[in-house]
């Protein structure tokens, strides 16, 4: 398809003249896309370019594009700098979030497709509903739930028990918050992935003697894989940039990478350093995503190729 569109059309001179005229004038499609293109250029591309420029500016200065230095990157890669610890925390938490969510979301996705029947739509709404409330508000809700003399602790004490566990402001509760926040982002691609598995194939496999586990391994999982992988990728990318969970629920018991960037921009007033860190993280996630997408051959997984 792409080759066809790019190849010069063989034919008369009139045809190529028409093409030339078209090339000089913007096509209808391009003109229609212009407003969005301008908006994206200003709103999306410009900040990226600015960040990229700042990353090579003199440390602690605000004059972008006037100086060029690699000092910021050198600072970040200096062994005495503990930013790598934040980066490891972010990566580790993101990986754990993805792993836990994969295990939690699969049965729910399976249920939404095969078990819940006409209740599926309502149950889906319950999972979407929290997204209507600001993430920070929801996280503060959990703080009230877990805090000393809060919902959990207070209720248990009222019942005459010794009170709830002291989990607030730990890395563990940070992970809990991330799993909670990103559940819909894993659940819905996964549900779509499982919906792609035709019932007939499961019936046929069963008819050919296969047991449940065999069918799951040989038929359901491979056919649902595109949805599962997209869910994992989406959750990972979101989770690696997460900051609110570590700040609000984790009480800064650990510093994640986005928090480091934020500190550089606000508290330390070192925009070039923050920019350099942002650029590094962006490139890391970008490279990872491209790598994953190149491995993720949707057409082949769906048997179209």
């Amino acid at each position, binding site marked *: 398809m792409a080759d066809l569109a790019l190849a010069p059309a063989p034919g008369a001179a009139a045809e190529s003249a028409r093409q030339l005229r078209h090339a000089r004038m913007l096509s209808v499609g391009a003109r229609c896309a212009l407003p969005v293109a301008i908006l994206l250029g200003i709103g999306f591309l410009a900040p990226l370019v600015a960040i990229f420029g700042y990353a090579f500016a003199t440390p602690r200065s605000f004059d972008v594009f006037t100086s060029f230095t690699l000092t910021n990157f050198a600072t970040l890669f200096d062994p005495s700098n503990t930013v790598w610890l934040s980066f490891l925390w972010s990566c580790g938490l993101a990986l754990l979030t993805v792993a836990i969510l994969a295990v939690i979301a699969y049965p729910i996705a399976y249920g939404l497709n095969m078990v819940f029947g006409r209740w599926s739509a309502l149950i889906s709404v319950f999972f979407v509903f929290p997204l209507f409330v600001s993430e920070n508000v929801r996280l503060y809700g959990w703080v009230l739930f877990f805090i000393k003399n809060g919902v959990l602790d207070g209720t248990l004490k009222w019942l005459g028990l010794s009170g709830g566990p002291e989990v607030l402001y730990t890395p563990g509760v940070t992970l809990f918050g991330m799993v909670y926040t990103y559940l819909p982002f894993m659940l819905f691609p996964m549900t779509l992935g499982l919906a792609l598995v*035709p019932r*007939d*194939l499961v*019936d*046929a*496999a*069963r*008819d*050919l*003697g*296969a*047991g449940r586990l*065999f069918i799951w391994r*040989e*038929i359901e999982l*491979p*056919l649902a894989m595109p949805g599962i992988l997209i869910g994992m990728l989406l959750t990972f990318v979101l989770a690696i940039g997460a900051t609110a969970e570590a700040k609000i629920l984790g009480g800064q018991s650990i510093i994640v990478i986005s928090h480091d960037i934020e500190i550089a921009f606000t508290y330390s007033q070192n925009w070039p350093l923050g920019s350099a860190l942002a650029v590094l993280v962006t490139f890391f996630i970008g490279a990872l995503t491209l790598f994953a997408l190149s491995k993720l051959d949707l057409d082949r*997984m*769906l*048997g*179209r*190729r």
Partner: protein
Amino acid sequence: MLQTLPADALSTELPKPILQLVGIRKTFGAFTAVENIDLDVREGEFLTIVGPSGSGKTTLLRMLAGMDTPSEGNITLHGKLINDVPPNKRPTCLVFQSLALFPHKSVGENIAFPLKVKGVDAAARKARALELMRIVRLPESYFDKNVMKCSGGERQRVALARALAYDPEVLFFDEPLSAIDYKLKKTLEKELKDLHRETGKTFIYITHSLEEAMVMSDRIGVMRAGRLVQVGTPEEIYGAPVDRFVCEFVGEVNTLKVKRAADGSWQGVDVPGTFTLAPPRSGAVLDEAFVVVRPEFMRILGPGESADNRLGGVVYNEYSLGSRIQYQVRVGAKVMLVELSRGRALPASLDRQVTLGWDAADAFTLES
């Protein structure tokens, strides 16, 4: 008219039943999909269940394959009750209407799937898959081909080979040829019947096309509204239909409603006239009956020719059926069909006054 042998003359030589259905009934809520079905499937036979859509034939098949359980009644295989045996524990295999091939697996992997389930090692799996590919006439080079890249006919063969790899005692087919173009369908029908001979397995085939059923089957069961109306050889279904439904299902027919008059003669209801009828096969004494005449048994009477029954009409149109010609003859408001061989074609047929005739022995007298 085709002769039918009395059932008990054959029964001594019939193979023993492999699959027995007794009083099978299936309801979905208030809807009864299958009602009171008794059927003995003989070992090694090619049995086709035929009926219009919604007649319950797929539901019946799903119960036989184990994907549904009957609401009432018993299914036995070799005399053992299998009502609640799940499909993966039954020595039966279903070829789906959609074929249900695994799109992420190659032709070879699809065919070898049941062997993989059984834990057969890779080398033996490949050997058996290649053997089955030869049987269903798939080239060996297709082993690694993506199954979704195969044509419709090739996919049929893959599905068939996969079912055979399971080595079932009974093979079920749920209209697998319905989405295939006519010419290929004709080829595959014959191949399937050849395969039936080659493997000697019991085939139960479901279709809404009686033509398909006629070509392939040893016996045909006709279903209507959840009930098995008639079971018999293709000759019996064609030559001795039990009611108008079966008659009409087999092909185009001329139907006349008749009533017994006070003097005992049969009078036409839609067309005037007195008719001579053969006694109904059931032997019942009727006051009302339907006379059914196939177009090929209807004649156009020349001067001096006689027949038990006569009707005057006008030729409205003619249709060429290849070696035969069909005429639409209007008798009053009633449309009758007559089929003649090409050699006996009427010259300048349109608007011609003709006399239709048929003998009582060539028509069916049916109660309903």
